[in-house]
């Protein structure tokens, strides 16, 4: 049985739903977007289960319920799919982090709130956390490039903390990259160990680590353990 064309159907399928078989009359751009998104979602799920190394094209297309031809329509390799999934995940995460940042007034609290949202999001969606923190290292240099760019995007926000430091002139120029890299590594390790649910418990420690070079250990600790 064929599905009715969209004109007769007031409820077109959900963006990520498997499309009806046969002639469905859906706009080609909707179909393309739906299939590409499903491939990305399937890849992300697989990463959460078996990591990048286990995410074969066969497993991805099975998860997305599309053909290999459809996969190759959008991506040449698994690495391409990984880069697309990474970029989509960053796109989804960006407004959450921005809201957390803007929700606080003082810089130390902004840093704390942003780390909190990141940890909560990854606790809820460990596969996304793993995609963003671990898999770019596994997938190779091409996937590592957007990862580096995503961390770089956060550098200016951290750098604002130099205004609060009495030693701002002497702080190393690439310190923020070091702090973000360490944050990434710490979170990634927890995710790889299958301990995503306890990620939010890292909040005070991670906040303290990030704030210490700017504020010194005592003030950093105070801000990290503040009750909100």
């Amino acid at each position, binding site marked *: 049985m064929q599905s009715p064309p969209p004109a007769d159907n007031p409820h077109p399928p959900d963006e990520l739903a498997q499309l009806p078989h046969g002639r469905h009359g859906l706009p080609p751009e909707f179909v393309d977007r739906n299939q590409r998104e499903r491939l990305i979602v399937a890849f992300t799920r697989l990463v959460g289960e078996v990591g990048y*190394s286990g995410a074969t094209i066969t497993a991805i297309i099975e998860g997305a319920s599309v053909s290999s031809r459809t996969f190759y329509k959008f991506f040449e390799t698994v690495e391409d799919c990984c880069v697309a999934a990474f970029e989509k995940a960053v796109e989804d995460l960006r407004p959450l982090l921005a809201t957390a940042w803007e929700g606080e007034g003082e810089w130390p609290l902004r840093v704390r709130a942003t780390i909190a949202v990141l940890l909560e999001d990854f606790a809820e969606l460990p596969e996304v956390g793993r995609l963003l923190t671990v898999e770019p290292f596994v997938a190779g*240099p091409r996937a590592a490039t957007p990862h580096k760019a995503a961390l770089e995007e956060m550098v200016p926000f951290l750098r604002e903390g130099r205004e609060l430091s009495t030693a701002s002139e002497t702080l*190393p120029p690439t310190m923020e990259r070091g702090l973000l*890299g*360490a944050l990434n590594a710490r979170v990634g390790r927890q995710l790889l160990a299958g301990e995503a649910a306890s990620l939010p418990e890292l909040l005070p420690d991670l906040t303290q680590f990030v704030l*210490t*070079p700017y504020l010194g*250990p005592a003030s950093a600790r105070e801000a990290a353990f503040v009750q909100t």
Partner: protein
Amino acid sequence: MARLSDRDEYLEVIAREGYLPRDADRFAATWDSLEEAFLERLFEATVPFGNWRQRFRAAAMETARLVEAHRREARFLSVDALAAGELGRMRRARLGQRLARLLDSARDELDDSVVVPEATAGWVLGIFFDRIYRRCAAGTDPDLPSQVPELLFLAVSAYFGTRAGLEELARPLR
């Protein structure tokens, strides 16, 4: 440190083909041999020094030199091993725990009033891992020895505070 200079054929295989489950035994043997060799080198580099900061400085510099001089081996430990699933994860966790114990001996030299989070050693390892990975994976980042003062600053700050960290930046590289 004979073992780091012995060419292990498997290092070439995994670099070329990636990790394959059928090579699990070879992977484990290569990892174990390199891990022991690396720790032995760290021990040799740090044993002449009395306090933690001197030992840590020596260990960081030795690690940086080893990464530059033995790029294939460093790449195996930091990049190739990431694709080795649970086997790689367990090996990395074991090495991480051994290094974390060494790092955390900094606590013996801390004033009692200072509260350093339990996770500090893991944090410091993350700082180093990130830089080593980037150096080995793409080879585009600056050479690791030139990054050591900054790495020392971040690590020492985490245990002893910013003032102590800044002293590391001012110290000439040896």
